[in-house]
């Protein structure tokens, strides 16, 4: 199969998944029994103005599939309707909050890549030895620390007891100050995923270390570090890359917990707040964004994989 056809096939699957996901997000509303206007305006005074606005936004007098198409066309143009709690366009509300979440995800992502890979490599290189066992036990305990537990422990220790980092908010808006405020939240967010990445790195490398080509490389007289770098790590990248795709959605969702714990106003805390304040259009938009990010990132990784790891393309063709 040529690369172009493969990419086209992936693209088709991507679009189909996104289309089905968007239907799920849109039609979920129809699972709620009763009148859509009263659902959308729960907890609010159904003033004539509000009813008219919601009806117009969703085209409630149209048949469901037409409502969906109108909504989809709007979404494709970046129009997610209007927020009920802010009386602003959903896209504006989300846009204001996106930088904090992205900052958090990038910072946590960097920590995950550096620490996760390092721990996995150290464990794999020392497999079976004390160092390996120590790392594995450490990872098992860390892996059981959900981000909300990590958040409160970090706040208790580093913000309250030691006073090294702030426990609340994102600072005065300056770049450095924002980064400073995001340190603890990023660590809380990264913990579970560091464990995931290092475990995959370790098992993938251990798998390679037992292969014959590693033995050959070693017997050729290559240094240990060259063998690890060129023959073990290089061949282990496939699974690591794939798991990083799974991370993206996980990070975006877990970000909601961390943002709530540290009082950050990103899209995660916006999601929770919108559920709390019954602002369904915002919930719909954020869910769709997270799912889209997940699907797109995974498709990109899927397409890139053969370039990074030519065996995966060859294997797919041979099978």
């Amino acid at each position: 199969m040529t690369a172009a056809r493969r990419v086209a096939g992936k693209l088709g699957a991507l679009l189909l998944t996104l289309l089905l996901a968007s239907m799920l997000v849109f039609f979920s509303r129809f699972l709620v029994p009763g009148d859509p206007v009263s659902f959308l305006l729960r907890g609010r005074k159904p003033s004539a103005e509000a009813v008219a606005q919601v009806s117009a936004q969703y085209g409630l007098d149209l048949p469901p599939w037409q409502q969906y198409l109108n909504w989809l066309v709007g979404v494709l143009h970046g129009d997610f309707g209007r927020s009920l709690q802010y009386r602003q366009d959903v896209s504006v509300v989300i846009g204001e909050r996106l930088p904090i979440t992205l900052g958090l995800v990038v910072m946590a992502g960097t920590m995950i890549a550096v620490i996760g890979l390092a721990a996995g490599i150290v464990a794999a290189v020392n497999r079976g030895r004390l160092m390996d066992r120590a790392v594995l036990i450490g990872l098992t305990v860390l892996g059981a620390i959900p981000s909300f537990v990590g958040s409160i422990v970090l706040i208790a220790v580093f913000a309250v007891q030691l006073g090294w980092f702030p426990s609340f908010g994102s600072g005065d808006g300056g770049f450095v100050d924002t980064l400073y405020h995001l340190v603890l939240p990023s660590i809380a967010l990264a913990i579970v995923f560091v464990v995931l990445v290092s475990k995959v790195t370790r098992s993938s490398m251990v798998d390679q270390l037992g292969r014959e080509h590693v033995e050959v490389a070693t017997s050729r007289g290559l240094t240990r570090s060259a063998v690890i770098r060129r023959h073990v790590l290089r061949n282990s990248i496939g699974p690591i890359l794939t798991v990083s795709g799974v991370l993206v959605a996980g990070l975006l969702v877990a970000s909601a917990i961390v943002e709530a714990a540290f009082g950050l106003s990103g899209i995660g805390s916006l999601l929770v707040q919108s559920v709390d304040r019954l602002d369904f259009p915002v919930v719909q938009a954020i869910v769709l964004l997270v799912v889209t990010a997940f699907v797109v990132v995974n498709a990109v990784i899927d397409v890139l994989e053969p370039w990074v790891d030519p065996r995966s393309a060859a294997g797919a063709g041979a099978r």
Partner: protein
Amino acid sequence: MTPTVAIRVLRAPRVPRSSTWFLASAVVLAVFTVGAVFAPFLAPYDPDQVDLLNIQAGPSTLHWLGTDSVGRDTLSRMLYGARTALLAPLLVVVSSTILGVLLGLVAGWRGGWLDAVLGRIFDVVFAFPSLLIAIMAVALFGKGLVAPVIAMSIAYAPFVARLTRSLVTAERTRPYVAAYRVQGFSGAWIASRRVLPNVTPIIGAQSTLNFGYVLAELAALSFLGLGVQAPTADWGAMINEAQAGLIGGYVLPAIVPAVAVVLVVVAVNVIGEELSDRIGGGISA
């Protein structure tokens, strides 16, 4: 795409094999289970009883683990909180396992277009992280644990289904299946009576691991204020309520449920990994 990998990720990590760890984990789980079941007898106080003379009190003979910001006994609340903490994930794991095994069995056994359609549906569900589905369910049906438990049962089913499917597909080509076919047994009988028991242990190990993830996610939901509602005692909700005190340096009401969550999740993971090791989970999912 990702799902098979997700399964492999859950299965790949191995704690150093050791019966001490396994035993310790079993003890931890047993203690919390007993605590949950017999909470009314074991708890020194009613979980909602307010002791106005001891607000945010430290550990004492009166309150072993101190009290929270309104003077409720932390130990008692932790014991009662174990009920929702353990029961809700159990419901999710049982129902997602039943649903997943059924779907996986059908997909793996029948193959063809049914397999393709189910695979496509799983892909779409996989694109929604389980916590996100739970939050969405709360947005639709209101706060509490009922909607999230149902939503997460659906969210976790594809993981079980994928695993079951891959196991059943491998099993289908085994000689014993052909032998039963020749003897005239129906496909449904072979699949349910002979193939299913063969793949059950591996699925059980996977579901055990799922329990830990679900527990953490449901606690997170209550921490966010979307799950169990005040004043009901729940680990996630307790941590949520204790946040203000935390800033003031009063950590106990937050740390106690946090430690409970971590202990149970570690125990479940150790047991799940040990189980899949002992079964010899040489299955490359």
